[in-house]
């Protein structure tokens, strides 16, 4: 029993390191692509790591209170936990993490864990910009959750299960079995929601580096910031893995994982560099219109699939 748990924890630590490293690498990679588009060289590949290290090596810090101190802890716990409940590579015991603890529903709800804790930490800093940023971020979250929820319901209808492993299993056996091809409506709705989830332009108002200096994390610095940067890489990669699992057939190996997630990420990046920013109420209205409609259609589509 104990040995089993130690094994699990060891495996998970490995997954965690790989996914985090991959997330960091991908951040830099995307940055470099953007730089290339702009005719620059861009940051070195290890720049995100250096930034995180630099912040760990800060020698001073301030604290606004215990919730402020715990905010980044909650944040990264949210990221790690979310990863813990997702099987990363199909068929691999090593990368199945703790997905036996709960299903897709658990993952979706656990995503809030970090956001809530982080929001509380930022709130205690007493900075009005933090509160404004969170207010905007949460509002936007309620909006993109709608198409996402609809898409998730659609695929749950389709596969008749909430277990991520089983959803991936159902998509094995060739690209034509992937959700993106079998249930493209749900995938479309989910990918639109994904744009909001990643927080890239045009849905990055809650960070808004110019108007409200970087929103919720305004007061965070030093090691706190390192935690949050780590989480940003980790959580971003985790969301990609989740989307890959749900809609793009999962991955049977690390290489497949990387290629697929990178491609999914590119969607957000391409749209992000092409469009200007929405105001938050515009963003909310946007999600309640076309994406929600597509989401509703996806449920109808899934039901039709079942009956036919």
């Amino acid at each position, binding site marked *: 029993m104990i040995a089993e748990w130690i094994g699990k924890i060891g495996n998970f630590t490995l997954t965690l390191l790989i996914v985090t490293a991959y997330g960091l690498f991908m951040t830099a990679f995307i940055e470099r692509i953007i730089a290339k588009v702009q005719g620059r060289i861009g940051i070195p590949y290890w720049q995100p790591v250096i930034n995180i290290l630099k912040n760990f090596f800060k*020698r001073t810090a301030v604290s606004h209170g215990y919730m402020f101190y715990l905010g980044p802890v909650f944040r990264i716990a949210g990221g790690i936990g979310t990863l813990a409940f997702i099987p990363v590579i199909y068929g691999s015991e090593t990368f199945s993490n703790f997905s036996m603890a*709960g299903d897709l529903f658990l993952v979706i709800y656990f995503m809030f864990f970090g956001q809530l804790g982080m929001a509380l930490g930022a709130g205690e800093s*007493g900075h009005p910009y933090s*509160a404004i940023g969170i207010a905007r971020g949460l509002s936007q979250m*309620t909006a993109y959750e709608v198409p996402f929820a609809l898409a998730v*319901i659609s695929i749950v*209808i389709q596969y008749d299960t909430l277990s991520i492993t089983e959803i991936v299993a159902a998509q094995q056996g060739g690209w034509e079995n992937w959700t993106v091809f079998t249930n493209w409506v749900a995938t479309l709705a989910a990918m639109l929601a994904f744009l909001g989830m990643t927080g890239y332009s045009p849905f990055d108002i809650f960070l808004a580096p110019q108007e409200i200096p970087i929103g919720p994390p305004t007061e965070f610095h030093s090691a706190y910031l390192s935690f949050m940067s780590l989480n940003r890489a980790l959580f971003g990669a985790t969301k990609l893995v989740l989307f890959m699992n749900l809609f793009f057939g999962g991955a049977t190996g690390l290489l497949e994982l990387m290629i697929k997630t990178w491609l999914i990420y590119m969607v957000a990046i391409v749209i992000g560099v092409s469009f200007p920013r929405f105001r938050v109420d515009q963003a909310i209205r946007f999600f309640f219109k076309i994406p929600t409609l597509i989401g509703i259609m996806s449920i109808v589509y899934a039901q039709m699939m079942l009956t036919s």
Partner: protein
Amino acid sequence: MVSSFFSDILLHPLGIYVLALGAGFLIPLFDRAHRGSAVLVFFAALAGMVAIAGLNLLAIVNGAPSIDIETAGIAPPFSINLRFGLLEGGFVLAVNTAALLAAWHCLPALRQHASALLLFLIMVMGINGMIMTRDLFNLFIFIEITSIATYALIGMERTGSVLAAGFKYIIATSVATTFFLLGTIFIYYQVGTLNIDDIIVHADLIQGPIGFIATLFVLTSLLIELKPYPANGWGLDVYETAHSGIASLISVGVSAGVFFAIYKVLPLMDSYLTSIAFIGGATFLVSNIIGLKQDNARRLLGYSSIGQMGLLTLALALLLQLEASSQLVLVVGGLFINHMLAKAGLFWLAGIIDRSQLKDWCAIAQRPGLLLLLGIMMAALIGLPPFPGFWAKWQLVMILAEGGQYLWIAVVLIGSLLEAAYLFRWFSHARGTDNNSMGDSSTDEVPPQAVVSLAQQLPVAIATLLLFVIGYVMALAMNIETPGMFLPLLAGFALWLIDGIRGRLKALAMLLVVGAGGYWLTNDLDGINRLFSYLLVGGGLLVSIAVMYRNDDRRGFYPLLAVLLLSLAVLLRAKTSLEFFFGWELMTLSSYLLVTLGRNGVKPALNYLLFSLASAYFILAGFALAYAASGSLLLSDLGNSGDSIGLIFSLLAIGFVIKMGGFGVHIWLPGAYAEADDDFTALLSAVVSKAGIFGLVLIAANLGVQSDIGLDPTYVLGWIGILTATFGALMAVFQEDIKRMVAYSSMGQLGYIVTGIALMSHLGWVSALYMTVNHFLFKGILFLSIAGIVLRTNERMMYKMGGLIKNMPFTFVFTMIAIIAMSGVPPLTGFGGKWMLFNALMDKGWYFIAAFAFFSSAVAFLYMFRLLQTVFLGQRKLEHAQLREAPAILLAPQFIMIAAIMVISAYPRLLLDPLSAAIDPWISNTLVWEGFALQTQYGYWNAPMIMAVVGGVWMVPLIILLLVSLTMKIQKVEQFNIVYAAERPHRPEDTHFAYNFFAHYDRAIGFLVRPRATAFWNAAVEWSHTLASSLRVFYNGNGQTYALFILMYFVAMVLFNGGLGS
């Protein structure tokens, strides 16, 4: 000789007349000597009349035959005879008692003229005669005697309006009695006798146009005396202007006499029963509609009085029509006694207080005794338990349902609701709408209080006592499980007696009483009732511990709280729908009164009461239908209702959903929750709202499952639930008032539970019950936290707070945990409920409801975060720098509930197994456990493992951060040490982002939550007021017009009943 004289003459019913007439002679005589002695004679005579009636009635109840009095020594039909039977005895006793009390009440006015004393006796005697006589012409005589005596008494006060009213009265009654005489003559012409019994025997002789006219004249003139709408303007003026004692006697005494007269002649009127019912019903409904518009207390009572007589007439006619005359005593007698005591009491109170405008009644706002009397009278009048009206109305509705008279049920219930509306509006005025219990009431302008002596209150108090006694007797007659059902009232009364002692001691006593009583009431329950008893009674006690945080006087709070909590126990204990309804109404009444005790609670409480009563009437209607369909009052027989099961389910569900603040009928909820006392709000939300859930579970179990048919209403209910959840959450987002916000949140969370129950599947129910427990836990914590915050900051607007985490760390942590438990974020309890609900929804195929559930739980994050952010985080106000943590007695129950949340989060099986077991009798278990993991068709949920993983992934970064912190110099800074764009903040107020927190959200989808429901209900109120004023057009105050109306009424009656041609 002497003894036989007593027994034969004085104690004989005839003694009533002897006493009246004898005293009539004696009074002027004694008056010459001394006014006081005349008064003594007067009272002796009245008391004698009461005694005679009482003793004779007792004898009859004990089996003696009814007494026939033959005058002139000749047997009827050749002479006038009087009868003193069971019904007559009851009426006579009631009337005489009321008269005695009324005499006491208006003694100061009566003793000014010796003749008034005389007239009063004559009037009472007249009424007695009307009740007892069996002779038609004699009846006319007594009516005339009464009329004239009444007229004279009305004129006792010689002001213009009184004289005008009296004149209109005598004209109207003269016109009516003229027709009566005509009718009598015609009947005599056809039958040849005036004896009513004889006429009934020879009823077949009354025929043709003459017979038709004769009976119609008799009937209509009697009905006119009862002041039916619209020919009743004259009566209203009298009620408004005459001395309150006289008015009360007109309202209860004269009306009783006439009513009994109608009862006597009804055997002749078989063909008119429908008209009579219609007249009664219309009068009841219309009077109560018009009553809404009244600002004058006495006129309002007049409308109520007329309405009640209408109800009595309706009940009488319908019962006879349905051939349920065996229930006459219970229904009509109950309604009559109830009306008589309550209405007379209200008239007397109106006389004592002597404020004509309703809004001036705040004169008794600081007089708890008078308020209590007023409240009891009104509660009795509306038919709330335990008063006679409750039982009578219940029985009436049951009989109507059995007879299929659904329209009349609607009339009775709507009319009652309207009556409740205006009566309790009055009560609200009396309660004083601007009542501040936070202790700074000294700054408010306290209106001059009415000065009332104890003696003046005596008649009202006696009436109250009689109401209770008769209510109890009726309860016995209805086979109610006494004394269990009356325990709440007893406990409340006991606590009321010690209401003078110090606050905390009272609270302690209350807890002990409720604890003992609750245990006694609920210890033999099992299954789902036992589960709910833990929640409602045990949980109620737990939350109630917190009431000890206040040590102020809180008059009335503890007794009412005991009544409320024990009535919940009664509810759980109920085996029959009657017992359930009894508990339900008791709960409604006590929680209403508790809400009025809040800061500005009176107005929202009125809303609360009206919606609660509406809910109760839906429930009543549902039970009535079920009774009609299944023929049983047992709750477990609800399912045998055959085809009407869908309708019954709908009615009952509407009732319960209203009580839970469902979408569209939620407008009472925020106000009541926000304005009630802070600790009581916790109870209201955490505990009392569960009564609605219990009801829903009950009907879902007994109706939905037992009947074994797919119920379409459940799908609607599912949507109602989820819309409630969504809109509750959305509206909570935009509130500034912390209590309103959490109130809306409460509404939203209950919505999920409704949906869970509506699923009608095992998993759905388990999720609903699980969420119920969870809701109890987190809402209890939240509202108690808020109580602490409000106590310390004396503020309810969230933007006026901020940064309280530094002062109230425990409250913050508790609130945070409660909010995580509410939000559904793993690993705490909320997740389990949401997970099961989602699984059950998917299982059932309610996909869009599932999507809504998702959305609303996301929206819930907005307000949850706002609560934490704007109250505890952000910038602390300067004046809050020295605040202390909430009192320990408030924190203790919260701590216990936090511990419960933690345990359930880690081992939900501890809770799920009993829940599942409680549901098993209805739906077989579908929970599959694999180790610690719960499995459904779709997914799995391993709570202990989730807890362990989350704990792990939380602890590891924390340890790392702590280690890293060792290498850094971390400075703890103050609230203004923030990056403020290179400036510095100047005041916490302008640095704290809190007001209109989600302005952008409002811009995006705020149009969804504009107060449409409120607008709708306001329009409904407006509409009913318009209707009331348009129905009032008949009352122009002109005696001639009124007389004309009476004539036209006859014509209308003739036409309505087929004209002369028949």
